[in-house]
């Protein structure tokens, strides 16, 4: 089950986007490493936007994955999360989605 990463353009990020993705990679089990390959459709996509405006959250991007986890500045799925805790929250959501799919 592929998990993909899609970044916004990064004009004025309020969070360290690549740093967040590195933390997510570290926390995910080995066989779950996220990809940035846009040629295949993903089961789960993590939309990593640097600010709450999340300009990359648009229909053409949404079609790339079945499920999305939306990061917009220090928010995950529109809820405020401290930057230090974001990777943990996102990984938990990824694993829950994978488990739901397997069940």
């Amino acid at each position: 089950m592929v998990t993909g990463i899609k970044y916004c353009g990064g004009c004025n990020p309020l969070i360290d986007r690549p740093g967040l993705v590195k933390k997510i990679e570290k926390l995910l089990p080995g066989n779950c490493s996220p990809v940035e390959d846009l040629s295949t459709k993903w089961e789960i996509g993590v939309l990593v936007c640097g600010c709450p405006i999340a300009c990359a959250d648009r229909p053409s991007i949404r079609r790339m994955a079945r499920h999305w986890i939306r990061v917009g500045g220090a928010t995950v799925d529109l809820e405020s999360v401290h930057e230090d805790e974001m990777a943990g929250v996102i990984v938990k959501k990824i694993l829950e989605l994978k488990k739901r799919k397997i069940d």
Partner: protein
Amino acid sequence: MALKTPEQYEESLRKLAFKVYLMGERVENPVDHPIIRPSMNSVKMTYALAQDPRHEDLMTATSHLTGKKINRFCHIHQNTEDLVKKVKMQRLMGQKTGACFQRCVGMDAINAVDSVTFEMDKKLGTRYRERFLKFLRMMQEEDLTVDGAMTDPKGDRSLPPSKQADPDLYTRVVEKKKDGIIVRGAKAHQTGAINSHWILVMPTSTMTKEDADYALSFVAPADAEGIFYIYGRQSCDTRKLEAGQIDVGNKEFGGHEALMVFDNLFVPWENVFMCGEYEFSGALVERFAGYHRQSYGGCKVGVGDVLIGAAALAADYNGVSKASHIRDKLIEMMHLNETLYACGIACSAEGHPTASGNYLIDLLLANVCKQNVTRLPYEIARLAEDIAGGLMVTMASEQDLRHPEIGKVVEKYFKGVASVPTEHRCRILRLIENITLGTAAVGYRTESMHGAGSPQAQRIMISRQGNLDYKKKLAKEIAGIKD
């Protein structure tokens, strides 16, 4: 009835039993009081334009609760288009009234309360959102004008609410009963309060645990037993008591502010949206202030349009419209005014959804917008006075113009360009006087400075949201500095 006619709005106000004091006297009939009525006319225009096919696209929206057509002032923003249309509507309203039309505070309050009650319920397990949505349905269905009431008198600014010599200087709950709460305190500078059907009270600032009694949000009928108002004076307000039309500058429209006093007001629990949840007070204040700072990028621009038009006419009537420095000053006024509008549109276009589904403006850009509003209208007003000339403050009265004997003298010596009647020149100069230093200056100047938060409040927000560390990082990269 999802849309009231202007006449129905006026009639609905007449049915309210307001307790209002103005210049030492109780006002029995606020709707027809000559000092208050122009402000009522401004709010009434929000109802009139919603009925007008030429303006309904901006003035109305579709309710996300009922799918019905409602006045945009009762709407919860569902996307960035709604945010942009809000600013355009406010510019239109400023253009049509040349004054503060007062209904924005309620719109900004419902949008802030919507997302905050949602988040509060989710985190704390409270049931505030259900209550709020019930109120919102009624507001939309009955097309109500709601006064968003935030600013407390605050007393000694160096002390928190609970340490004030008089604890009522901040609005607070004094008793929690089985069926509701008792509230005491006051709200200052309440724009349009006496033209409103309901009030929506919010905390004045971020509260701490010690000040939990002041973390309070609720709605109440504007004429509820336990609320009274002391009407605020405005520069040149008693000109409205005179019989003429010219010297008031803007005969039809105006704005108003009042001190709203809660004298042991009872509020049933079903109308309470926050009571002690101090950790959410900051978010409510920040979001309401953000929406209201966006608002100024629309309403002040509309009034600015009227003032620029008046200055251009004054130049025409004085015979100086072809002078290069006059043309340049008019260009500068338009540039400044459109700069404000650009900020209002920008913070709207860069809006984003909240967890409740409603849309919030970009808070940094909204604060930049309002910071500009604390400055640029003053320069626009200065240029208008420059173009108008000293006559705008030394001109004879309307009574003199109409006088059977000296009227001819006034007519002769206050004449500008021969083809323009003297009365036209008098009218346009009085309008400039009205906006720059008369009753409307309350809205166009001092409200631009302090309304929706004084300049320092925006600077704090800009400092907090300006992302300075990232800017340092960018500079280090370009300069080749490696830590």
